Every structure is written in C-alpha cells, then in structure tokens.
C-alpha cells in the first residue's frame, strides 16, 4: 500500500456522506466506523471527519487483554478479532484518539480498517471516494508532502524563516482552507 489518507478538517462541510459510504463497505455490517462531529458547536458550525490513525504501535492493541487487535502487513490496524474479543472496551478507553466503537449486542469492538478490501489494492476507502469537499483524500505520499509544504509556505508570507530550533512551529495552524 503506497497511498496514504490525508484529512483536512477545515474542508469538512458536515454532509456525512463519508459515514453513509462507510456503512456500505463490505464487512462493516451497515454500521459506520468513522465520525463527523462539531468542533465547537457554540462557536461555529465547523465539523470534522475523524478516522483511525492506524498507529504503528497502537495503544488499543496494547491494552487489549485478549490480544484481539491485529495489524496487517500493510500496517492497517484491524477491528478486534471476533473470536478473541471478550468485550471489555479497554481499547475504546486506551485509544488516545477515541476511535474504537463497541457493539454491546454482538459483544465486539469495531473500528475503521481503511476499507481493507479496497485499500489493500490501493483503491480509495469508501469515505475518501465519496467526500465531496476533499476533506478526506487517499493520495500518494509525494502528493501529501507537496500539500504539506504548500500549507507551510502559506505561513511564511511575512518573511519569517524556520530555524533548526523552531521549525515545528511552522506547521499550519490556521482556521481556513489552504489548498487549491
């Protein structure tokens, strides 16, 4: 898998087509695994899409007492294996991003698997393939680097240059859409 997921929260228009698409994905049993929520409802109507980060060393897998969360060779963190999951929800509370969902009836955890049947073959996951405002994109690594550079450039218009000691301060931080 050479492509990556690229999220731009500011681009989200809150249409929730990503959630509708997620429900359609094979193996998702008509339940969405991603989130679309308001950032700060009292301040603005800005929404954001949220997916699993597919961590290299996932906290959810580390806190699972049944060793049920497995990572594929492509690096996709899968939902808890149904035969192992004991339904304790440790993963839900261990995940720093609050991603795993839990189905009380079927007693199992389910989470974004990047539509493994599609992304395995470099096909965009359901959510990325339907997002009308490109808030969720499934793009090449190089394309992502170019986008990030462009965002950083926007912060340099006043002439301040990043130094070795403070270059991390130059990652984009504005509220607004930067990309074309």
């Amino acid at each position: 898998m050479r492509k990556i997921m690229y999220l731009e929260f500011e681009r989200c228009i809150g249409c929730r087509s990503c959630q509708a698409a997620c429900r359609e994905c094979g193996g998702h049993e008509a339940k969405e695994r991603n989130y679309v929520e308001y950032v700060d409802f009292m301040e603005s109507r800005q929404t954001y899409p949220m997916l699993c980060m597919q961590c290299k060393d996932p906290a959810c897998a580390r806190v699972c007492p049944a060793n049920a969360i497995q990572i594929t060779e492509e690096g996709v963190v899968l939902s808890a294996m149904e035969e192992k999951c004991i339904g304790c929800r440790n993963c839900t509370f261990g995940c720093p991003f609050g991603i795993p969902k839990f189905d009380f009836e079927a007693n199992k955890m389910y989470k974004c698997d990047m539509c493994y049947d599609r992304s395995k073959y470099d096909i965009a996951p359901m959510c990325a393939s339907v997002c009308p405002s490109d808030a969720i994109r499934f793009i090449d690594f190089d394309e992502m680097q170019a986008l990030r550079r462009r965002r950083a450039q926007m912060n340099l218009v006043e002439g301040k240059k990043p130094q070795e000691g403070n270059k991390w301060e130059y990652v984009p931080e504005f509220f607004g859409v930067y990309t074309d």
Partner: protein
Amino acid sequence: MQRLEKSFYSKTSMYAFFVTLVLFFTVWIGTGKFQHIDMALLGYLLSSFIFAIGLTVRMCSWLLRPATYQVVKRSLKNLKDKKRVKRNIISILKTAFENIFLQKFIFKRGIYRGVQHFLIAWGCIGSFAITFGLTFGWMRFDLVDSDTYQIVVMDLPTITMKAHGIFAEMIYNGLNITAVMVLVGVCMALARRIVDKDVKVTQRFEFDLFPLYLLLAVTVSGLLLTVSYTFLDGWMHHYITLIHQITVVVMLVYFPFGKLFHLPIRPLATAVPMNYQEEWKVDTRPCKKCGATYSSDEQIEDVKGILQAQNFDLQLADGSFLADYCPACRRRMRVMKQLNMEAPKGNPYGPIQTLNGIQISGFGKKRSDEFYNIPKEEEKVH
C-alpha cells in the same frame, strides 16, 4: 519456592513440568497403576501430553502480556474481596451461562453463525471430554457379568448399566453424536466462508480455514471408523484408524497455537461484569470535560496502568490523562489542538492570534509594532 523456580529454565517450563506430572499421576491412578492402560490409545495419550504442555506455554505467554496480567490481577483481587462476593458469583454464573454455555452474543451476530458456532463448540468440548477421559484412563468400562457394563471413573466403580440399554448406547455413541454436531457446524462454517464475501476481507488461510479443514478431517475420519465397523465389516478399518490418529495428533498439537486457542481464554470475559461494568450498558465514571459517563473508575485505572507499563505517555500538560476524557472529548481535543482553537478566545475583531505569531496577510492587517522590529519614533529623536 524461589529455589524451586531457579532450578528450572523458566517459570513456564516449571508449570509445564508440573502439569505433565499431575496428568501422569492421574493416568497412574485412573488406570490402576497402568494395569488397564489402553495401548491402542498410546498415540493419542502422547499427543495429549504435548497438547497440555503447549496449552501451558501459550497460557503463560498470554498472561505475560501487560494488559492480560493487569486484568487477571484485578480479577483475582476482586475474587478475594469479601464485600464483592455477591457481584462475583452473579458475574461468574451469568458469564458461564449466557456467554459460554448459550453463546448468546454469537446468536446476536446472526442465527446462522450462532447455530454453527454452538454445534462446533459443544461438539468439540463434548468430544474432548470423552476422548481425554478415555486416553488419560480417567474413565473406562468394565464387564461385570455377561449382560452388565460398569463405568469406572478414576479407578472407582460407579454406575452399572445394561450392555444394550438405551443409556449404554447413548454413551457408546457419544463420540458419534458430538462428531456429527461438529461435522454439521464445520460444513456450515465452510459454506459461510465460501459464500460470504464480507468475511473474505480479513480471513487468512492458516488462521481461519485451516482449523476448519482440520476439524473436518478429524470428524470425517472418525465417523468413517463407525461406518467401517458397523456397515462394512471393518473394511479398511486399520488404515482409517491410522489416518484418524494422524489428524487428531495434528489437531492436538495445533490447538494451542491457532484459532482454537480462543476457547481457553474465553473465561476472561467474566472480568467484564466482575471488574468493569456491573450492570450491562451502564457506565459510572463521568468525563473530566463534558461530564458524560463513559466507563468505570476501575477500568480507567487499569487502562492507565497498562499504558504506563508499556511506556505510553498520554499525560496532558495539566496532569490529567487522555483516558480521563470520554472518547468524544478526546476526538474534539485533538482536532481543536490541530486547528489551534484550544487557546483562550481573544478579541474577535483584532488580528488573529496564532501560536507562532505568524499570520497570513489579509486575515487581520493590524499588528503590534514589535512584530516588525521597527525602532519607535521617540527613540530615533533621542
């Protein structure tokens, strides 16, 4: 105890040794000092020992995981707590009945899957109970007189029964009944794996399909034995015996290391009602930010402990941990951090305040003069 431990290569090897020793001792008792040992089952006996050792090794390595260790530790602590006796008993009985015996949660994933799993599970457990009883010699049949059989358990004579009574027939055919259960279940499971495209997404041959084919081979060869001696006058019986023995040995050696290992870890599900969630679907701990209940204190304590044991640093600047917030707040916190919306909101009409003081021209033109490093007028004059 420490000296005993030191004399072994590892704790695991010590446990494996004692498990083997205890099993050997029970065989010694059960077969009446090896007088009644069934030599036809010797291959099964040896592979059962390997099975027991493999199971011990896998259980030990499973308990070594920080997460499992923490949950098991809390479970044992709660089991000893006298104030929680009622809750413990209720959760153990409830899990044993609903989760392990009836397997309700699988029926909720689908009736077909429920029936399939129920047949495989109880067919396998029943077969294991009968075969282990016979191979370890814990149970055998003695002929009292020409018409009466007696079941001898652990070398102690128990029930007597008519050699051709209904009860006796049921016991003789116990393995056939369980084998048919497994056969039907495995065929249903294989059909599902072939037809259902959803399960193909993550299924792996060596993990999901191999155990099914293995169970199929064991049950088919086992049932062929019955067919051979009842209908075909023992045709090819000897060869089928060997084939059956090979399949069973492969299954017993494979058991602790593959998908079937989910059977011995399932009792850990008791920990959920016992430690974490007394009432189903009822959370007690409020989120630090929004106040909505999302978990229980004990569970969050465990999660923090497990994460700390594995050097996950999820502590925030104010000393609280990410686990103190509900999942919805955690998602929001991350997004607000990324969008720089966490900082206190200033004058909405002034220039936008950013972390690094850098702004895009046009968002708010007016800036403090220090930003441009232009010396002030007064300084120039003096």
